[in-house]
C-alpha cells in the first residue's frame, strides 16, 4: 500500500487511512520516506537518460511501424464498400433505389421518344438513282400522298419492241401495271444517263 501511496495512485479514502497509519507508525513512515527517495532518484535518472535521446521524427518512425502494409486494391474496394454499407446504409440504399426507379422510368421514355439510329430525317427520301449498266430507259419516280416514293422501271424489251401496233395492247399489260395515262418514263433509249443526285426528286 505504501508504494501506490507514494506514487499517488490511491483513492482519497485509502490515502486518509494510510496517512492515519503513518502518523502512528514510525517504521512505515521511514519506509515511505525511502520509497519517495527511490522514486525521486529514479525520475532524475530517467530524465537524464531521456535528455540524451534524439526524439526527432520519433512519431513518424512509430507511425511507420504501426501502419500496416497496403492491402490489394480489390480488398480495399471491398472494405470501402462494406464500410459504406455499414455506416451509411440508409443513404446508400435510398440512393440505389432512387437510381433504379429513375432508370426504370427514364430509359423507356428516352427510348420511346428517340428516333432509331440513322432516322433523324423526317421522311424516307430517294436522293439518287443510278440506272443499271446498258439501261435503255430511265426509271419513273412517283411520289405518293403519304410521303412514299415509287421507283418504277418500264421493261427494256417492251420499250424496244413496242413498234408494231399488234404489240400495243401487250405493252399496256407489260409496262409493269401502269395504266394508260399514267406517268410514263422519260425519253428512250437512254444509254448514257447521268446519275441524278441531290435535292428532291
Amino acid at each position: 500500500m505504501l508504494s501506490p501511496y507514494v506514487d499517488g495512485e490511491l483513492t482519497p479514502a485509502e490515502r486518509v487511512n494510510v496517512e492515519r497509519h503513518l502518523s502512528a507508525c514510525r517504521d512505515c513512515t521511514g519506509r515511505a520516506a525511502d520509497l519517495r527517495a527511490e522514486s525521486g532518484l529514479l525520475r532524475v535518472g530517467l530524465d537524464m537518460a531521456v535528455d540524451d535521446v534524439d526524439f526527432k521524427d520519433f512519431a513518424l518512425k512509430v507511425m511507420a511501424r504501426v501502419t500496416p502494409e497496403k492491402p490489394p486494391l480489390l480488398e480495399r474496394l471491398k472494405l470501402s464498400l462494406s464500410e459504406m454499407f455499414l455506416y451509411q446504409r440508409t443513404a446508400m440504399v435510398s440512393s440505389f433505389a432512387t437510381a433504379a426507379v429513375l432508370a426504370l422510368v427514364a430509359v423507356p421514355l428516352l427510348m420511346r421518344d428517340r428516333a432509331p439510329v440513322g432516322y433523324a430525317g423526317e421522311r424516307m427520301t430517294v436522293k439518287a438513282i443510278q440506272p443499271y449498266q446498258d439501261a435503255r430507259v430511265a426509271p419513273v419516280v412517283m411520289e405518293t400522298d403519304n410521303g412514299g416514293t415509287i421507283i418504277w422501271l418500264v421493261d427494256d424489251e417492251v420499250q424496244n419492241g413496242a413498234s408494231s401496233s399488234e404489240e400495243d395492247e401487250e405493252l399496256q399489260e407489260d409496262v409493269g401495271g401502269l395504266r394508260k395515262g399514267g406517268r410514263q418514263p422519260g425519253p428512250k433509249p437512254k444509254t448514257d444517263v447521268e446519275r441524278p443526285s441531290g435535292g428532291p426528286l
Partner: protein
Amino acid sequence: MRTHVTSGRVLLAVLGLGLLMPLVARAQEEQKVRVQAEVVLASRKGSEVEPPELVKMKEQFEKQNFNFTSFKRVSMEVLEVGDKKAVEVKLPNGSNASLQLLGMKDGIATVRVAIPRQPTLDVELGRQGAVYQKAGKHVGGELILVLSPPSR
C-alpha cells in the same frame, strides 16, 4: 481514413471507366442502321390483299395509275445494314437485293439499294414514308421491294 478516401476515389475511377469503356467500344464498331425490307408480289390476277395492311399500299399504287389488283406479302424482315458489307434480301425470282449503308450525316443514314437489272437507289432514311422499288417479275406479277423505318 486516408486509405478509405483513396479507395473511394479508385472506386469512382473504376466506375467511370466501366461506363466509358462500352461507349468507346461502341464507337469503334461498324456503323449499322435498321431497315425494314418487305417484298410484295403485285399482280392483276385475283384481288387478294394479304395481309390486309397492304390495302394502303394498293391504294397508293392505284392513285399512281397502277392497275394491280392483288398484293401479297412474300417476306418481311428488319435488316441490320452496315457500311462494311452489303446485306442481301432474297427475292423469290432467284435474284437478291443488296443494301449497304453509304454513310451517316447529321443523324441521317443513306442506304444504297441495288437490285439486278433495276436502278440503284441511294435512299435517305426518315421516320415516315416508304420507298417502293420494282424488283423484277415473278409468276405473272411484279415484285416490289418496300423499304420503311422499322416499326417500334
